[in-house]
């Protein structure tokens, strides 16, 4: 039964693509809603599937996983409405693949063994390829789609290694086997999972694929950066946090990696002037904070922030899409659509403030909890979280002001499509609703229900963190005044580094190997020349003979068609080539082989 959770949206998506109903957007949204309902009903369920005798697939939905399982389709629902309203090309394919994407993500969420996880994990990657490359007629998207797929698959190798190490050490692939690991397999499993999660979640050094993914349609970005794909990375680490904690150095590695990405990604976001790329870089930064929180030992807190961030980020992408519709570009210079799109501007504000972690919005609460969690791991980590939080406030404020502050553009220029406005309202409403986490009874109920352990906060750290947010907001306002030119290099030059250090050397190596291979072929041609000189001569003669025979055969065949004559003709043309010429050679070899065999036997006997 639990398998229905990934299958329902996946099959519905394929059906929607194959046979589009009259109102595909509404149908897709309904399916997303049903999936969320199903996820809620299935909380606590478990399943088992004899996929292969040696490798049974297992699924389960513990409380924390159920939270994500419900959140994914709920975020997808408004995104699907927005996609339908956006009226891009090949809408049924887009909606269908988005639903398949949700299904694959659900498979990752319910996985209770590493093979199930790997299956869902890679299908999520393949869906992202198809979705990023949705506008395949243009030059850029397919290249970016391949870049994203290969970059994340490079990280997937970590998951493969974790799976193999676990199986080799325990003979099982279940999550429960992870707790029985020790020594080298444990280290491989922990670090392998970290690498896989880092790639999916867009951490350093894999981060650039997230910017390339911006070549996909905006609804794809909205889902990919909130509840799917990047969320998979964070979810994986949160689900398997005990392994991460037990593996030598892996938890510390997660904190260093997460905080480094949170800081650098934040800086990269502050430098971007492309609306979607600002949001994309901020996604890396935000998932970095979540991964650092898992590293600090508080997976539940990371998941809560994942949900809160998903609502806010999806809303901001929808808002960016509406802005793009109004201006025809994602360039933040001269957007300032406050007057042109007053409602969108107002609805985007809570999302931006939540991303900036301003109280009393949801993001403010979860971010302070994350800082407190990092504080448990040590003051340095808390400091990193505080700095990254300040930068988050800066890019959030800068983004909203550049996009939606009141500017020169007049109202009523282009009315946003209804579906887009509804989607934005829903997501923004979700952010506001999640802000109830500030209320103690709500917070306690959620923590109990989802089994989330909350860290004990330190007043000094919280004060410092809030001060950093205030400073960040001021910095954001200042940066919004002078947005600067587009940066010469996205993501602080990291894509260039990858290009020069990995992509080009591998391509050169491949070309070299191909030349060597060709040279070997040619060399053999020369070398074989001697060996085939004999054969070649014979064959040449045979060919001539057989051609002559063939001509004879043709003439024979022209006679009244009799079976025998036909056979003779074919024999003349085909068999003749071999039988008369190569056959000598062939039998010689046969006899030689026999002799060699006998000699060998005597030698050994």
């Amino acid at each position, binding site marked *: 039964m639990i398998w229905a959770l990934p299958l329902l949206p996946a099959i519905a998506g394929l059906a929607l693509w194959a046979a589009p109903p009259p109102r595909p957007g509404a149908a897709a949204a309904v399916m997303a809603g049903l999936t969320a309902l199903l996820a809620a009903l299935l909380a606590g369920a478990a399943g088992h599937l004899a996929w292969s005798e040696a490798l049974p697939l297992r699924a389960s939905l513990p409380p924390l996983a159920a939270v994500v399982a419900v959140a994914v389709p709920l975020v997808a629902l408004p995104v699907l409405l927005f996609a339908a309203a956006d009226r891009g090309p090949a809408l049924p394919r887009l909606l269908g693949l988005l639903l398949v994407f949700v299904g694959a993500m659900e498979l990752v969420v319910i996985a209770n063994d590493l093979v199930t996880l790997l299956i869902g994990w890679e299908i999520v990657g*393949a869906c992202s390829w198809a979705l990023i490359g949705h506008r*395949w007629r243009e030059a850029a998207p397919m290249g970016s789609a391949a870049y994203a797929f290969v970059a994340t698959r490079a990280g997937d190798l970590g998951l493969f*290694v974790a799976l193999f190490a676990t199986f080799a050490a325990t003979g099982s692939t279940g999550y429960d086997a992870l707790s029985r690991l020790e020594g080298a397999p444990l280290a491989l499993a922990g670090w392998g999972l970290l690498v896989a999660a880092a790639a999916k979640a867009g951490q350093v050094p894999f981060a650039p694929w997230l910017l390339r993914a911006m070549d996909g349609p905006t609804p794809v970005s909205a889902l990919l950066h909130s509840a799917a794909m990047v969320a998979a990375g964070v979810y994986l680490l949160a689900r398997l946090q005990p392994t991460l904690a037990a593996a030598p150095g892996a938890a510390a590695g997660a904190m260093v990696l997460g905080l480094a990405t949170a800081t650098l990604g934040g800086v990269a976001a502050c430098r971007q002037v492309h609306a979607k790329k600002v949001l994309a870089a901020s996604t890396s930064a935000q998932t970095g904070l979540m991964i650092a929180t898992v590293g600090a030992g508080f997976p539940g807190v990371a998941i809560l922030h994942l949900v809160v961030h998903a609502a806010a980020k999806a809303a901001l992408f929808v808002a960016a899409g509406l802005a793009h519709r109004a201006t025809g570009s994602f360039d933040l210079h001269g957007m300032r659509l406050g007057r042109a799109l007053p409602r969108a501007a107002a609805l985007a504000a809570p999302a931006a403030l939540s991303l900036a972690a301003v109280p009393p919005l949801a993001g403010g609460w979860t971010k302070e909890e994350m800082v407190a969690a990092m504080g448990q791991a040590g003051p340095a980590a808390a400091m990193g979280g505080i700095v990254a939080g300040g930068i988050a406030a800066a890019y959030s404020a800068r983004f909203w002001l550049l996009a939606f502050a009141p500017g020169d553009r007049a109202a009523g220029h282009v009315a946003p499509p209804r579906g887009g406005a509804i989607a934005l309202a829903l997501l923004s409403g979700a952010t506001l609703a999640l802000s109830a986490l500030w209320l103690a009874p709500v917070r306690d109920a959620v923590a109990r229900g989802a089994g989330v352990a909350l860290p004990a906060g330190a007043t000094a750290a919280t004060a410092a963190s809030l001060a950093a947010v205030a400073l960040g907001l001021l910095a954001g306002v200042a940066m919004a005044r002078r947005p600067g030119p587009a940066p010469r290099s996205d993501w602080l030059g990291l894509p260039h580094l990858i290009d020069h250090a990995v992509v080009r050397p591998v391509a050169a190596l491949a070309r070299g190997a191909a030349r060597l291979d060709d040279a070997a072929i040619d060399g053999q041609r020369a070398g074989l020349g001697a060996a085939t000189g004999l054969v070649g001569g014979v064959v040449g003669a045979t060919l001539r003979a057989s051609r002559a025979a063939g001509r004879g055969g043709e003439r024979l065949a022209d006679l009244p068609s009799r*079976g025998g004559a036909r056979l003779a003709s074919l024999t003349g043309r085909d068999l003749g080539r071999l039988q008369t010429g190569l056959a000598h050679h062939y039998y010689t070899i046969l006899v030689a082989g026999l002799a060699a065999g*006998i000699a060998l036997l005597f*030698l050994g006997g």
Partner: protein
Amino acid sequence: MLTLAVIVPLLGALALAALPLDAARARPVATAVAGVPLALLLLVWATYDASGGFSAQAEMPWIPSLGIAWRVGVDGMSLSLALVSAVIFVAAIAWPIRVSDARAYHAWMLFLAGVSTGLFVTLDLVLFYVFFDLSLVGMYFLVGRWGHGDAQAAALKFFVYTLAGSLLILVGIIVLALSMPDLTFDMRAIIAAPPLSGPVAGLVLLALVAGFGIKTPVFPLHTWLPPAHVNAPGPVSAILAGVLLKMGAYGLVRVALQMVPEAFARHALPIALLGLASILWGALVACAQDNLKRRIAYTSVNHMGYVVLGVAVAGSGLGPEAARQIALTGAVVEMVAHGLITGALFLVAGAIWQRASDHDMGHFGGLAGPAPRLAGLATLAAFASLGLPGLAGFVAELHVFLGAFAVYPWIAAAGLLGILLTAALFLSMLRQVFFGELPATRADFADLTRRETAILGALLALVVLIGVWPAWLLSLIDAGSLVPTLGPGG
């Protein structure tokens, strides 16, 4: 029953060559004849006795004094390979291709179908060898006569190269038979009591691995493959990759692993390294190919590397028994999966050649516009080949690597780079050929016909079926019965 499955296509070939049949009707007749072994094999499968050993056995004395007889029978591995070969033959023969002298072409195809089925179902080493060589003959004519480009040279190279391999195999086979207490070429007897040990066993193993390695092909014996593929017609390439390469891998398991297990265990590591070299070299060289067919051909080297790695692990005698079984299961699934997937990819390449007479990927782009069905099926096949879960290639690679890691962790870890490279090279192939801007010269590129769509769709449906629900195939293969039970060193 199995005897019929071998003889019917051979008789069909003869009839097609001899009877005054209208050339236009050669294809439907040949397709129907090729369907007979498939139906018979399905029947054998329906009555298959999974309790171990060989099913559907039949024996007829031939040369009793030398211990040679017509012996047929199948176990899970050979039945699954015979079945997939039969499927690929039906697909390749039914594939609509414009050929000169259609009757002769289809006669050779049927000949090859009978010979291939014979190779997988025979239980006599001499017959095995005869079928092995006859397959070379059939393929030589098909590539040489109906190929394009430098087809004659490619066919000759293929022939000479693989003939050299089969000579080595012959030596090994003869030594094996002569060292039996009673001279016999009965595979069952030799497998039950492998006669060789010591240095002779090592030399025989060397001969067998080199011989089968050429046909598989294993790095560095693979260089005959690209020219043969490039110049062969699409359906012939599909058979070359889908069926003939499997003969080498099948021989590696059936003869090398099962009949010289002790020496195999001693030398498993170098064999595994050969597999690794094939995986990495095949993928790396494939990355740099601009010719569509050459790129697919080199991925065959890569994929057969997984098979060799799996077989080497299975025969290593190291690590847990379960891991070796899983590796061999993976190797056999890879043979089946690679047959279907690469068969499909070469049919795609054949469809493109039929329409454009060009394989240079740089001359294409945006074909998904005029040919959405072709693009969709090619994308599915490419993702299957790069090992996407839910498709057959993943099942195979997962099992091979899972087993290999428990025995040779470093080799398995290095081999993982292969799946990254294949992802890159297939996605760039799809992008170059099917996506992006459509060159003006390709505006009238025709999509797949209904028949082509049905054939490709059927092959890929099997790929999806195996990927989504592999349990039926895995229990049929039952690799447990193939893994030699002896410990390391004998």
